[in-house]
């Protein structure tokens, strides 16, 4: 068992940093939000999706989340139909440095099924 674990850790791939993560996002500003998917951009060099989040005051805010490239997501188990407009999702992310409502997603959990998908983002995998 331990051998298998080590093998997998060794297999962990290098980080894909398409654009400089640090130029745009702040790893020290984690974010976890739940909301409804309003728009998807399944495009290179990074996919984006936009989520409407209702605050405690009832005010609705739109957040934009960056993920990896379509190819990166596909290799991480996504299809372009994994998340659809109208889906309720919980997103873990790192906020944009500029304070805008943008963030770099790490994981997306589909609330209805509980399935968690990894965002193939430009952040490193854990445990390195």
């Amino acid at each position, binding site marked *: 068992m331990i051998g298998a674990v080590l093998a997998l850790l*060794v297999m962990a*791939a290098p980080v894909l940093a398409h*654009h400089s993560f640090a*130029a745009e996002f702040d*790893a020290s500003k984690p974010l976890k939000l739940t909301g409804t998917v309003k728009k998807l951009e399944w495009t290179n060099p990074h996919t984006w999706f936009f989520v409407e989040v209702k605050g405690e005051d009832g005010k609705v805010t739109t957040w934009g989340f960056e993920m990896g490239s379509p190819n990166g997501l*596909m290799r991480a188990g996504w299809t372009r139909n994994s998340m659809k407009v109208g889906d309720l999702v919980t997103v873990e992310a790192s906020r944009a440095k500029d304070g805008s409502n943008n963030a770099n997603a790490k994981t997306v959990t589909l609330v209805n099924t509980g399935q968690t998908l990894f965002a193939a983002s430009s952040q490193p*995998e854990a445990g390195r």
Partner: protein
Amino acid sequence: MKAAIILIAIAAACTVSLSAQWPKYVEPGLPRDNQGQVRMDAASPRTPDGKPDLTGDWVRADRDPRPAELAGITTEQGRGSRAVVVEPQVQGFAADPNSPPLATFWDIGTNLPGGLVLTPWADDLKKKRMAIDSRENPDANCLPMGITQFHMQPQPRKIVQTPNLIVILYEANYGTRYIYTDGRKLPPQGEPQPWWYGYSVGRWEGDTLVVETNNLRGAESGPSDGWLDVRGTPYSDQATFVERFRRPVFGKLEINVTVTDPKSFAKPFTVRINQRLLADEEPIEAVCNENQQFRVRIKID
């Protein structure tokens, strides 16, 4: 242990889903074991004229130390399933005692004994690039990212070898590189005009393909020119590269890269990049510029 089990589950899920998402192509004619897996340790293929055949799809097999720039992103393994899986899962190779120091994607000279000694010009330029978070990295801007970043970028690349020409097709930023093996000589440095990929000619020394490159666009050409790594270790328009490619077994490609650039480095240096055959999978179309908003978002355009 719980985290480890989750990691295994993730890896297993990725393996399964990958085959489900991209048409699986079982390449004929490859050496396989009883389970149909390609035997990475089988003998290297050869072309009809007896040369080693480097043709195939390849992924980088070395690992970087975790870069300091990303130190703020903490591991959450202890709390469960928060590993972020990126790009193909690549199995590394056993250490090669005859290998030059391994190149690293983030900072190419990390493993050189004593570090890579930069000239004041190069050191100053690298600091300036890092001070703005490598935002001008050609990789970040859908531009050709230079020989070493292309060799190490996690996305796969396809080598197509013909007798007189070798082409490397990079999934990353849709790059294309030509290496002429028809016996021509390198043009003089400075003629023709410099190119993103430079001008490359290759020759065989035994089972090693030796590729020389000059006429590269150095850092003088623009902010995204002359990058060796993510941190922006530069090369100048004086730079020449020598790459020595070997395929010692079926599933391994070794590339020793020597960079000579007196404007940037006190002396030439050599690093190794190992790649593993990506059997039965392929690079996938990736048109980088279809929705490139990075520069707009960070307000430099």
